[in-house]
């Protein structure tokens, strides 16, 4: 079959992406545990196809402040990937990494931004490695770019990017557990349609 749109993914193919999400999140939890020096637990990721509007709602509404981290994927598998992290996630990681607690995004300084980018880099590599391991594809990621602002404004960037690909976007929701704190992490996968076809082909799924 030929994909025109992410909505063309059938349940089996969605399961494949879910499994990539699972392995990626597992890798990410391991990497984060090592980086933060704290065991990190993880709930089973939830994967959904959502419109941009629905993603905004899932993130607490358009004006909710979040951290957005954007990376481009290049090589055998091309596209974009975006991490959307709430304030609690930023708090947990920065607290563990830099030993500073902060209550508000406006308190994050250059060091904090840099640390958040590094966390995103590690998480992105974890997911990308999952795809590489499963398929043997060579994938490069670009240096992450960070933005802390209203969810709606951040989401306008992937929305514009996929507006000519698909009405719906692949949305992965994880929940990380660190000590007694819980933090959600959301990931948007925006692969090129050809890359998605290639991925399914490599895995021998329904082509």
């Amino acid at each position: 079959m030929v994909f025109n749109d992410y909505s063309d993914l059938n349940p089996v193919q969605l399961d494949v992406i879910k499994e990539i999400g699972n392995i990626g999140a597992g890798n990410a939890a391991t990497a984060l545990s090592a980086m933060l020096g704290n065991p990190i637990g993880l709930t089973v990721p939830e994967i959904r196809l959502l419109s941009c509007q629905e993603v905004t709602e899932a993130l607490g509404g358009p004006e909710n402040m979040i951290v957005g981290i954007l990376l481009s994927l290049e090589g055998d598998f091309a596209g974009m990937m975006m991490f959307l992290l709430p304030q609690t996630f930023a708090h947990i990681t920065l607290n563990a990494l830099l030993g500073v607690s902060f209550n508000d995004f406006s308190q994050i300084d250059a060091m904090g931004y840099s640390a958040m980018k590094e966390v995103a880099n590690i998480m992105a590599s974890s997911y990308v490695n999952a795809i590489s391991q499963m398929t043997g594809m060579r994938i490069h990621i670009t240096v992450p770019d960070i933005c802390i602002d209203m969810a709606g404004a951040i989401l306008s960037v992937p929305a514009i990017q996929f507006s000519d690909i698909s009405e719906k976007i692949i949305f992965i929701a994880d929940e990380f557990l660190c000590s007694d704190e819980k933090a959600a992490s959301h990931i948007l996968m925006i692969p090129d349609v050809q890359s998605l076809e290639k991925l399914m082909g490599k895995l021998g799924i329904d082509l």
Partner: protein
Amino acid sequence: MSNSFTVGISDLKVVRAPDVLVTYALGSCVGICLYDPMNRIGGMAHIMLPSSQETGMKGDGYKFADTGIALLVKKMEQTGARSPLMSAKIAGGAQMFASITNSTIANIGQRNVSAVKNILAQMKIPIVAEDTGSNYGRTLYFYAEDGRMKIKSAQRGEWIW
């Protein structure tokens, strides 16, 4: 009593005084507010992309600067506004991420803003206020009562045009 109406992404709405239009968290998208002060009719469009002419683009006309603004003017005229009386206030078109090089979205905010300006110039609608560019999100309120535009940002407070 005024009512408030939300303009979504790739959406447009037209109201009469004293109603208020709002669009939340504009990033690289551009919000276009048109006002006819005689008839006290205000309209707002929230566009995502510069042009419907670019190849491979799908979706309705509300998404693009060229078709979106034309549809907004038409809808305002149907409501009783007259285009020679209209003036525009525009906001948004930020670059949320500093180093994007991807061809579709590189400088998309800036491209959206210049497309909007071109279309408005072609339609001979003067731009009386502009709050565009930079790197932060904006929530936009537009009051059909007197045509004022209020901008709210996350970390810079709010101000009026």
